[in-house]
């Protein structure tokens, strides 16, 4: 994707600057931007290491497994077809808990495992099943207790209160998830007919 977007950005802005005589600003920003990328990376380094370390501790404990029990009722609502399938439900909930805790590195492999198990149960191998659709939508909703990257960026830019956005982020995430789940449920209902064909 960036292979298309990046050159477009460069070509448009560089040629626009040449034609509009904005060259001095452009030259400045070329040097400033490389520097600010380095500065941001160095500033991010500390908090990224901290969180990766903390999350590594979490992934070595049974915390994820214990939290999956809390999700049981939600799973039965979201994945009505998997109600009896304990194995897949466990894989899905481990992926969800890892996402909630911000364990991105652990969440993706767990999620891929869940997708493969759901594919085994899928009748039409070239089409997403109902459960898969719901699963992907939940994964794109980014339900997370602590938005670590954003907090790190904010503190690197000298925010007075880098964590002040945590609560607003919860509310926005929940609203996004509810809308995503609702649309997914509607789409699943509406595309039922196609499936039988």
């Amino acid at each position: 994707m960036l292979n298309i977007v990046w050159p477009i950005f460069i070509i448009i802005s560089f040629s626009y600057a040449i034609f509009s005589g904005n060259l001095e600003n452009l030259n400045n920003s070329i040097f400033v931007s490389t520097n600010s990328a380095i500065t941001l990376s160095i500033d991010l380094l500390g908090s990224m290491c901290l969180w990766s370390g903390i999350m590594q501790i979490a992934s070595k404990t049974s915390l994820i497994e214990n939290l999956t029990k809390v999700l049981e009722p939600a799973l039965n609502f979201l994945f009505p077809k998997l109600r009896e399938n304990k194995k897949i439900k466990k894989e899905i909930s481990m992926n969800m808990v890892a996402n909630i805790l911000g364990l991105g590195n652990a969440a993706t492999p767990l999620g891929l495992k869940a997708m493969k198990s759901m594919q085994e149960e899928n009748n039409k191998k070239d089409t997403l099943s109902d459960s898969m659709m719901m699963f992907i939508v939940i994964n794109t909703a980014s339900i997370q207790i602590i938005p670590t990257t954003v907090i790190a960026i904010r503190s690197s830019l000298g925010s007075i209160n880098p964590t002040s956005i945590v609560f607003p982020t919860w509310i926005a995430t929940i609203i996004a998830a509810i809308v995503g789940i609702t649309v997914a449920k509607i789409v699943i209902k509406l595309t039922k007919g196609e499936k039988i064909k």
Partner: protein
Amino acid sequence: MKIINFLSSVAMPMVILLIVMYGVKEKNKVFDTFLEGAKEGIKTTLSILPTLIGLFLAIGALRSSGVLELIIKLASPILDMLNFPSELMPLAILRPISGSGSIAVATDIMKNCGVDSLIGNIASVIMGSTETTLYTIAVYTSCIKVKKTRYILLAALAADIAGIIASTVICKMLS
């Protein structure tokens, strides 16, 4: 208002405390494990550095050349009608497409509008509450070689749009 601030500031310490206590309870070598993870953190951060340089260059050029201003000016009648701050438009467009790209744009916005300003806060909440939707869909559908995706993009993008609108409304209400 006080409760919201309290919840926001207590979340991070609580999670760290809970995880460390869990590690101790299960008799893990907590500090060794921490170091293992922290090393991974260096790798992750360094691995996005080249991307950040490339994207900062592109976004910096868009801004300094005046193109961004032009685009924002052209789009602002529609955005004003929706009551959506035009400075945030580049972030809203790039967020579902590219993770590191949206980090670069969000940082750029927070820097230019002020990290604690309303716009800065909205940019932060958008970043925290949405995901790189297209990438996620690509990873999960390609691993099982599914071709028919039954309008999943519609559902996922609806969630993103809802998240962006909700971020704007909530931050405006709290400010």
